[in-house]
């Protein structure tokens, strides 16, 4: 079975959730991967959305973080103050699963604006949402982001969230923080991708680990589950 780079990214991100109990899910790429994980290796993973739906089991991908399907299938539906104060803030959620419009080498995330001037941005982006506290309060943070020089930048235009220590899964491979400096280092490549590809897709001088692992291609089961999920949505 052939697959696309986006499919490889989503499958790799779903695999990253193996062994986790709970995941605070951002919308978009992270939500697709978290829902794939629930259909493949992690059926018992508790998906938590910022709308207050805890333990949601949607049958199709939600378009927003507050679709009715999430509330109907959740173990518990709590208020928005409660989901942030009681569930996220104390650090009881294993993984925060987020994306980004811009990302720098220290996993600082920008989802606020493009351009140098806050008052007169070139492009106004949606803003913070739940991300600053999801990035700070989950025990671990995984970012799911397509790798290209527009997104992987030397300097973010605005620091919306700080995901220091996060691990990044892209359509090309994976980056992990250097234990001493915190700088993101290329540690893994997906099948068919080489180091120069990853460097060319990065807006800073990308460091590469001494040994770069190779991702196992998606299995037929993973690809079928992903395609069924997307087709149903």
């Amino acid at each position, binding site marked *: 079975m052939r697959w696309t780079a986006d499919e490889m990214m989503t499958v790799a991100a779903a695999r990253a959730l193996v062994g986790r109990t709970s995941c605070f899910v951002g919308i978009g790429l992270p939500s697709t991967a978290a829902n794939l994980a629930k259909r493949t290796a992690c059926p018992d993973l508790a998906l938590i959305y910022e709308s*207050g739906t805890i333990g949601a089991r949607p049958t199709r991908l939600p378009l927003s973080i507050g679709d009715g399907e999430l509330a109907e299938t959740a173990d518990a539906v709590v208020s928005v103050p409660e989901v942030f104060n009681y569930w996220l803030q104390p650090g009881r959620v294993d993984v925060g699963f987020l994306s980004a419009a811009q990302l720098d080498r220290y996993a600082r995330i920008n989802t606020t604006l493009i351009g140098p001037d806050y008052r007169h941005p070139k492009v106004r982006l949606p803003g913070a949402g739940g991300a600053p506290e999801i990035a700070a309060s989950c025990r671990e943070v995984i970012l799911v982001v397509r790798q290209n020089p527009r997104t992987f930048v030397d300097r973010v235009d605005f620091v919306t969230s700080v995901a220091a220590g996060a691990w990044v899964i892209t359509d090309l491979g994976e980056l992990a923080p250097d234990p001493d400096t915190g700088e993101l280092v290329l540690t893994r490549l997906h099948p068919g991708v080489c180091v120069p590809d990853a460097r060319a897709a990065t807006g800073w001088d990308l460091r590469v680990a001494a040994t770069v692992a190779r991702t196992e291609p998606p299995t037929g089961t993973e690809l079928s589950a992903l395609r069924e999920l997307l087709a149903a949505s």
Partner: protein
Amino acid sequence: MAELVSLADGIATLVGDGDTVALEGFTHLIPMAAGHEIIRQGRRDLTLVRMTPDLVYDQLIGAGCARKLVFSWGGNPGVGSLHRLRDAVEHDWPRPLELEEHSHAGMANRYVAGASGLPFAVLRGYRGTDLAKHTATIAPVTCPFTGEVLTAVPALRPDVAVIHAQRADARGNVQLWGITGVQKEAVLAARRSLVTVEEVVDRLDPRPGATVLPGWVVTAVAVVPGGARPSYAQGYYDRDNGYYRDWDSISRDRASFTAWLGEL
């Protein structure tokens, strides 16, 4: 006891020019019809407060009703940009829009402080971000017991909160269920409140997990079936995801938005 009113009378009486107005509903139960009535009545200089501006504030901003926006996430969920919000921020159209920008956790806690009658709320938030540089309502505070430096955000006290709920009874007791967001906090934080409902029933049968706002904390109730469309009302109708996608093209340029506004 809440007064039963028409939507037009409720907006005319409770929402004035220059007011700070919070239309809440987190993806679910968004008071869209109330937003449209505010546009029809031509309110101006509003400070609009809402965690997720969504289509309802994109419309109010594009219609020129707003002077300022207090918010935490201004996108079209799962679709992309709110183009009227962007046009106001990027090009001052139809008028400049002042922003007061927070995170969801910060906004939720600001409503909690307002509902609690406290001047501010405390959270472990915003650390290392640029938000505090641009938002005056984010400040560090030191815990007097542990010395931990936390973040303080001031209470939100809107002049009026507007929410949509599934139903109410004749005494104005309001019942909502499903994703209940920050609506209870918004109503309790506000000086006045208007609740639009799908229906008024003789008796509110208890429902597991439902939030009830007693009629004596609600100023007015208006029956507006479908008042949350194209968002949804659990148990009544589903979210119209197709309309959220359509809004992207309706709102993308000023001419098509202005045509939409003319038909409202």
